[in-house]
């Protein structure tokens, strides 16, 4: 493959690729994001290929990036009609090929059926999960094989780079990014254009651009899916950034726990280099820029920009005070611009379509779209990309499909360990950097965990404190000792050893940790516990004063027993109990031996719903 040494060469290649592709061509796109791979989509892809060959069918089988509707994987889209199938198994392959690919027939059982209305969706846009989204960044995932640069070029990839290099000056690109008010998608929400400007104008060479792919928030996988599904979009963004800032060396710092994303990134970088879109004299423009991949060592704190840069330098990832900004002295003490994966992926869109278009989406202070990982007690879990300004209620109900099992919404946690829990009363808050912060939470990197009545908010606070106190770098006293003590207090509360004054102490200590810590990890760490104390104070007080856990979660405060009136003696729970704690015979009422019960909930889950004889009190 010859290197593309001019923009004309790129356009010629693009035309050739598009010309080769018949839009009416039959194809089966199988989602190959990590979630669907875990469901067996690799085997599914092989099965499709094998069966198609056996049937002598001329159909392209294309593994693609994450489609986002992880709840319903493995996902398959049949082209050219774009018929959407969910929960496709290997046993369905033959039928899909014969009926849908071959004859255009829709297989009902593989369609998405709305649990409430019973409506079936034929095409992706009809699925309520997708209908309310605006998939600017993730939308391409389904159309391309992430390991094929030609697929990316075929859908318009690297047009923005070509435009920036040959039609725009560095100042003009900067103006666009500034005007678009692209705010950091990694959690900080800091205007990317301001960072770029600071770095461009800083004194010193060489200058570095970094992609923060350390995505450490528990339950967050937005960046993972962008990198797995469309790695070239990130690369293109970085090259445009490097051109604007004046950098020749870039880094992608990716957490080692993302092997698939790492693999796809490496393939993409190599093919970009082969095509002259990375490396020396990019597209014959004279720009030299290459990207090196650094892997993280498993520390959440290395997602903090100064710690990340130290980690690249080979030092211990401890953040430093940022009175001198990273754009002036960052990596190796040189001007460095760091942005999140999703932020970089937005750049080509802004360059192609202009800041005016970007600003038409979103709210006054938060422009564009944001990808959220919607998880927890919600029907439709997965990745959603929505315009800023959509309400939390719409995300949870219209896209998420509400709480499963007809449960009641209790809270939504946004922003990962740096964010807070918002109760039902705040569901009409728009998704917006400043609004969420004002409400005591944070946009964060996009984690969104939905909770129902079976979630104990004290337990949630304890969970996040436990995560953070171990992930804290341990340098500053407030974060290291403060989080430890906050955890101790919430732990005592969950074990029924809460005391009067604990909540006041939590508030006092949290204030100090938030105000006096060195970096944002400590600065935002009290958010989960503070927001839950604020919005669910009654639940805390029940734990402290009555030694009760209303949600039935805290093991020391709950008791499992069997309602004699409902139990039919079916023996199911007895068989499943891991500690032999259930006494009973067939057709006779069972009893739980409290001395052996480990409160694992297996009996509660196992008892058939029609009897629901296990009671938590």
């Amino acid at each position, binding site marked *: 493959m010859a290197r593309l040494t001019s923009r004309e060469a790129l356009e010629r290649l693009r035309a050739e690729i598009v010309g080769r592709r018949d839009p009416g061509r039959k194809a089966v796109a199988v989602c190959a994001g990590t979630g669907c791979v875990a469901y067996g989509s690799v085997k599914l892809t092989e099965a499709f290929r094998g069966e198609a060959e056996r049937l002598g069918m001329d159909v392209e089988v294309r593994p693609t990036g994450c489609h986002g509707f992880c709840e319903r994987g493995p996902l398959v889209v049949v082209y050219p009609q774009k018929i959407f199938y969910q929960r496709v198994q290997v046993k369905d392959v033959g039928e899909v090929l014969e009926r849908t690919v071959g004859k255009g027939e829709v297989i009902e059982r593989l369609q998405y059926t709305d649990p409430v209305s019973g409506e079936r969706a034929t095409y992706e846009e009809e699925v309520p999960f997708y209908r309310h989204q605006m998939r600017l960044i993730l939308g391409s995932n389904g159309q391309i094989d992430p390991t094929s640069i030609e697929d990316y070029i075929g859908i318009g990839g690297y047009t923005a780079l070509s435009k920036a290099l040959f039609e725009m000056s560095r100042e003009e690109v900067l103006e666009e990014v500034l005007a678009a008010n692209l705010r950091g998608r990694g959690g900080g929400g800091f205007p990317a254009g301001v960072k770029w400007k600071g770095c461009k104008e800083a004194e010193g060479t060489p200058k570095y651009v970094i992609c923060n792919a350390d995505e450490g928030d528990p339950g967050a996988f937005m960046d993972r899916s962008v990198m797995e599904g469309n790695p070239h979009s990130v690369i293109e963004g970085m090259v445009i950034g490097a051109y604007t800032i004046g950098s020749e060396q870039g880094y992608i710092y990716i957490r080692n726990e993302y092997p698939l994303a790492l693999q796809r990134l490496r393939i993409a970088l190599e093919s970009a280099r082969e095509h002259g879109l990375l490396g020396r004299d990019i597209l014959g423009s004279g720009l030299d820029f290459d990207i090196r991949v650094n892997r993280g060592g498993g520390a959440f704190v290395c997602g903090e920009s100064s710690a990340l840069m130290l980690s690249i330098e080979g030092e211990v990832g401890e953040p430093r005070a940022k009175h001198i900004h990273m754009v002036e002295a960052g990596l190796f003490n040189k001007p460095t611009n760091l942005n999140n994966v999703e932020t970089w992926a937005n750049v080509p869109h802004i360059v192609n379509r202009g800041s005016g278009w970007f600003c038409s989406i979103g709210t006054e202070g938060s422009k564009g779209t944001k990808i959220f990982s919607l998880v927890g007690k919600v029907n439709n879990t997965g990745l959603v990309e929505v315009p800023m300004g959509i309400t939390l209620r719409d995300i949870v109900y219209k896209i998420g499909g509400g709480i499963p099992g007809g449960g009641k919404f209790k809270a939504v946690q946004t922003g990962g360990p740096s964010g807070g829990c918002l109760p039902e009363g705040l569901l009409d808050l728009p998704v917006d950097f400043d609004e969420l912060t004002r409400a005591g939470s944070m946009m964060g990197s996009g984690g969104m965990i939905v909770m129902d009545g079976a979630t104990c908010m004290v337990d949630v606070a304890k969970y996040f404190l436990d995560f953070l*106190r*171990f*992930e*804290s770098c*341990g340098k500053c*006293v407030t974060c*290291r000792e403060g989080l430890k003590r906050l955890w101790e207090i919430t732990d005592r509360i969950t074990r029924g050893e809460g005391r009067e004054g604990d909540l006041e102490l939590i508030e006092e200590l949290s204030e100090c940790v938030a105000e006096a810590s060195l970096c944002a990890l400590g600065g935002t760490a009290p958010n989960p516990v503070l927001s839950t104390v604020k919005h669910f104070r009654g639940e805390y007080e029940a734990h402290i004063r009555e030694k009760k856990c209303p949600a039935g979660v805290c093991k020391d405060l709950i008791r499992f027993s069997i309602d004699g009136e409902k139990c039919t003696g079916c023996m199911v729970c007895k068989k499943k109990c891991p500690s032999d704690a259930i006494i009973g015979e067939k057709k006779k009422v069972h009893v739980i031996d409290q001395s052996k019960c480990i409160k694992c909930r297996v009996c509660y889950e196992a008892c058939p719903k029609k009897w629901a004889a296990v009671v938590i009190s």
Partner: protein
Amino acid sequence: MAGVKYTVMGQEHEAERGASLLGELRKHGYVVPSLCYHESLTAYGACRLCLVEVRKGKRERLTTSCNYPVQEGIDVLLDTPKVARNRRMVLELLLAQAPGASQPLQALARRYGVKSVRFPAKDDEACILCGLCVRVCSEGIRAHALTFSGRGDRKKLGTPYSEPGVCVGCGSCAHVCPTDAISVEHDDRTRRMWGQSFELARCATCGASTMPVAQIDHVVSSTRLSRSYFELCDECRRHQSVERFNTVMGR
């Protein structure tokens, strides 16, 4: 010298741009507590005791002063209510973390109004993880014998892999430690620290113990001093220089 003008509670001062605010405040006699700051080592910002409020333009922020570079036009506020309450809480956390360091911490706690320690303090730990020993060993002495291992509340101080290693026995770590957490034992001929026993060199004339042999090795390899400098103790070297002088002067 690039001088910048700044104020401390309205009082004007001048400093070199980028100088440590804490260093400058102390030069002018202001009292700001700290435990992890040492004038000759890079600021670390671990203990959080040197908090001040800095007003810059319209922004006011609480910050540690040791690692805050002095800038033109800032106004520094000491001992504001925000500073005071954060400092009290920090001291309370320190007392709970290091009950074995009570002596220096108690004095600070009394001074800054810590009423009680509301967190359980279990053992006899004295180390407050301030990092001074690590920094003096790596930046000053350059023996790189000490390090932090672990993270968060499991962070620990010690030699790499907790094994005796490249320590030269100079004892600077013990000197800079603000809570006397590092033990150095001496007898006539050896010094013991960090699980290592260091043989002390002896003066060739009077036999007095001078420095650990390992430290001599280290200084010889890292400076231009030859080993001959270390043969005599300072007293005998003075004798020797007097002898030489007298010989030269024919006395």
